């Protein structure tokens, strides 16, 4: 597939948004969906629908096979050792809650420490915060450097003899910094520390190889990967998923239920209680195929070029201040304009069909550290082009004009 024709795969770009062509620079929030994924949902509900894993009629068996096929596709895509290391969840948030809750129950004791970073999204902080109260554990934060990165030394500095878990993001949704997960995991494992990775921004934009990264858990958000909403994935090493207690109870996750005892199902059923997001799982197979058809190397190259171009253009714009300048950077450009609040920027850009995000992007810790209440963020996906950044810059200049900036 030619990267230049990819945009045509996404029907939303045929729409006029308030009479404008859509310049979608909000993929870190959620990506748009290619037609193959949208069609697959429709087709499944129209011709093939049944619940999975329960009944033995034809449709149920066929749907179950499709559902399990996606698990295998995901396993291959992220190079997990075993298909049972792939657990479907309702989102990356649920995946991270699952890990925090079950690891907390089984492995944490009073006084234990969890190490996060100042770059973490709220969904990789709040679930751990619950354990402060229930388990009386302590949370430490590895600090960012002046470039908005987390150098390994800053992680090492915060590791103590009580550190039991390191929970870190793969790619920052604000500064775009890519964290050296493999190296961090090596250090952590040498000290017997479990590594949990929030892969929300990493999964759509980086090459995923679980066996190479060697982290213990990796959470994925499918709607950021050109897939449907309502679906996430938890990768967990088999030994952990086998050892940890179940998270939610209900149908499908049990082996035997008696009045006086219950035994739980094997992986992956143990963590998939209730009717799952069946159509979404089945359609997500098309998202994986879509990513594979382009090739992650091509995606990385394309997005790197885009972000370098965007950086170059915005650096020349003297009112714009870029947030963070990491050496190893993914497709996220956060910025502020002196004298214009990010919400005002977003409203004015929206008038030109330029969709960005304004706010703290669920990273209040980081914004406090940077001493700014909010920022504006442009983030890219496979469908973006350099002209999107030209339009962004033109619309930023319109902001400056309205606010009478030079």
């Amino acid at each position, binding site marked *: 597939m030619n990267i230049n024709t990819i945009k045509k795969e996404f029907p939303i770009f045929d729409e006029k948004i308030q009479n404008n062509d859509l310049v979608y620079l909000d993929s870190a929030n959620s990506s748009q969906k290619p037609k193959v994924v949208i069609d697959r949902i429709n087709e499944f509900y129209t011709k093939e629908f049944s619940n999975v894993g329960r009944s033995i009629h034809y449709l149920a068996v066929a749907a179950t096979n499709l559902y399990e096929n996606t698990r295998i596709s995901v396993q291959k895509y992220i190079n997990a050792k075993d298909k049972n290391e792939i657990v479907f969840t309702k989102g990356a948030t649920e995946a991270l809650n699952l890990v925090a809750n079950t690891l907390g129950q089984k492995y944490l004791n009073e006084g234990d420490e969890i190490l996060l970073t100042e770059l973490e999204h709220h969904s990789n902080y709040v679930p751990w915060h619950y354990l402060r109260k229930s388990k009386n554990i302590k949370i430490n934060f590895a600090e960012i450097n002046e470039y908005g990165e987390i150098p390994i030394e800053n992680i090492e500095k915060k590791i103590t003899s009580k550190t039991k878990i390191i929970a870190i993001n793969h790619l920052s949704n604000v500064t775009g910094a890519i964290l050296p997960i493999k190296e961090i995991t090596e250090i952590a494992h040498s000290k017997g520390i479990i590594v949990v990775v929030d892969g929300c921004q990493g999964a759509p934009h980086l090459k995923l190889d679980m066996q190479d990264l060697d982290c213990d858990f990796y959470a994925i958000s499918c709607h950021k990967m050109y897939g449907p909403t309502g679906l996430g994935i938890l990768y967990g090493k088999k030994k952990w998923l086998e050892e940890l207690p179940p998270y939610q109870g209900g149908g499908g996750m049990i082996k035997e239920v008696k009045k006086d005892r219950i035994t739980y199902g094997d992986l992956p059923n143990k963590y998939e209680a209730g009717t799952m997001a069946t159509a979404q799982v089945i359609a997500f197979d098309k998202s994986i195929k879509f990513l594979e058809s382009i090739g992650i190397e091509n995606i990385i190259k394309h997005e790197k070029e885009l972000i370098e171009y965007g950086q170059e253009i915005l650096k020349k714009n003297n009112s714009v201040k870029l947030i963070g300048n990491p050496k190893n950077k993914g497709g996220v450009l956060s910025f502020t304009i002196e004298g214009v609040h990010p919400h005002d920027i977003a409203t004015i850009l929206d008038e030109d069909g330029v969709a960005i995000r304004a706010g703290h992007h669920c990273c209040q810790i980081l914004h406090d550290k940077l001493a700014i209440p909010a920022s504006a963020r442009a983030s890219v996906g496979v469908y973006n082009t350099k002209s999107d950044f030209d339009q962004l810059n033109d619309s930023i200049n319109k902001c400056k004009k*309205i606010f009478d900036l030079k």
Partner: protein
Amino acid sequence: MNLKELYQEIILEHGKNPRNLRKTNNFNKDAKGNNPLCGDNVHVYLKLNNQRKVEDISFEGSGCAISMASASIMTDLIKGKSDNEAKEIIDDFLGMIKENPELKSSILEEDDKTKLMCLSGVKQYPMRVKCATLSWHTLISAMEDDGKQVSTED
């Protein structure tokens, strides 16, 4: 939609140079408000004297041009009013932002009404209504002394 209606001169001017952006000395009522989705926050301080008159009103906080201008204009208009008059103005403003085409209160001078009507541009921008109303809801909370933190997401 029209950006010019949203970002009128008065709004931009108040946004850039907000009035009463400080902390009232010896305030006897105050409340905090925030918009968790975007990180805007405001702290309103009030000094009500024995005659239940607003002797001073001020605010601290940060936010977009709309929210800063709204807090600035609000504090300007409420200063010197009795608590009942203040409540009438608040109701009138919130009613206008929500549904009424005009301001109805007879307490407000025509000039004041013009200033407040500048904020009516947010009606076309549902996501920005909260920016205009946060400081007003926070003022209600301060006057009622309910000790609650105002949040746009409650």
